[in-house]
């Protein structure tokens, strides 16, 4: 695991924790794997909204 991946997983865990939602370590890896695509979806939505 690279440092940036670990940082990313820790950040996602923290954000969920702030909402009162736990996540297991194996699940956070899976969430982190999909997260860049989620960011891309949000970027696409913003781009269309501004069109």
């Amino acid at each position: 695991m690279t440092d940036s991946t670990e940082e990313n997983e820790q950040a996602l865990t923290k954000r969920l924790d702030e909402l009162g939602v736990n996540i297991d370590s194996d699940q956070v890896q899976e969430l982190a794997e999909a997260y860049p695509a989620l960011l891309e979806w949000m970027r696409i939505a913003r781009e269309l909204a501004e069109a």
Partner: protein
Amino acid sequence: MTTASRLHYASLLEVGDQIRARELSPVELTKATLMRIERLNPALGAYYTVFDEAALAEARQAESEIAKGEWRGSLHGVPIAFKDLYSLGRTTAGSRLLADHVATREAAAVTRARAAGAVVVGKLATHEFAMAAATLSDHFPPARNPWDPDRTPGGSSTGAGVAVAAGLAYGAFGTDTGGSIRLPASHCGVVGYKPTYGLISLAGVIPLAPTLDHAGPLARTVADATAMFAAVCGHDPDDPRSSALQIVVGQEDLAGGIRGLRIGVPRDFWEVTCDPAIRTNFEAALVQLEEMGAQVSESPLGLTLLQVMAVGYVITLKEAAAYQLPNLRSRPGEVGREFGLAMRAGLLVPDGAYHAALKARALIVREVDRLLQAHDVLAMPTVGVLPDPLPAGPRRLSRRITVSPAPQYTWLANVHGGPAVSVPCGPAPDGLPTGLSLMGRSYDDATVLRAARAYEQAAGWGEMRSELFP
């Protein structure tokens, strides 16, 4: 593959007519349906719950009323079923979270179907909360495709597609947030109809994403789907999304053919992601529609599938996660893995991104409306892939949240809100069904259904049944 003429594969309207004429007993029809469910459901997994006694009581009541000349309409005495998101008895949403949940109030659509005399035989399998894909390791066994039981029937209204395709009901009500009525219709070789947003009440239906959720029928014919819609549509003050416009489509609206109908083909939206076998069937359908007198022309949308699905999914994930937040906090161990992860992803969508997606949705609506100024309906394949094998366990979240999502062209009509119908479009070379999707202007459901009916009658693909379940 076989062309069936058995009673369990008759259309809803055919058995309805026989019941009205007192040539067919609702009690005998219901008994036969329950026996077929008992025999085939272990292999197909369409039903979570079967209402044997209650269904027979409803059938007896229907028979008594009809004998007295009190016929209520096409659904009177006919066995139908509901996806397990509609509140009625034990209502699980396909989740261990609600495995023991018994609804205290009936969904409005169930009440209306019963008022029309329908015999409700059971509750049908669904993807967990209408989202997570079914797997062989789910808490509830997955529904299986009658054309190949090792494959998915498509979802999320999995059981509805299977029940209608295998002759385990004469019609079924599903829900559709991104295609969940039309995808199983396409994969199972039946008709799926998503009406204009707000025309069927969602009161008492467990939500996924309230601004995209729709209720609607799956049936063996377009005429059956129209009759089911007519029985339950109409304004409902208990559903804030319910349309104040009263749109009723009757059988008379299906007549007249499609001569002169303007059909647009937004090829730029779907073609590059479509399986060649599905594209071949679609092109043949276009030729047939032209031969029937329709004016078919290319009509670029100017939007990609990824753009539309990204907008749809950002909205869905955000709204669904907001609804599920209490469950994620208090009972996380009872939420399925894929669904739980998808909901956590939804919690990571900032409010600003959600509002941007709503704004982007308005742009998509404008672009579709622009095409529908020049065309009466838009045509495309329902989905660009054939049904996948049922996976052994939960799919990785990156299979769903990806920049190369499964090509579900159905999302366009959910984001737009207008009516859309999937009708059988012929088998792929391996025998699996494909679907033709027709979508139209909001509240012009009649035109879409008329076009679908005309194609269905000319093509005849809806007559095909799986040889595995004769």
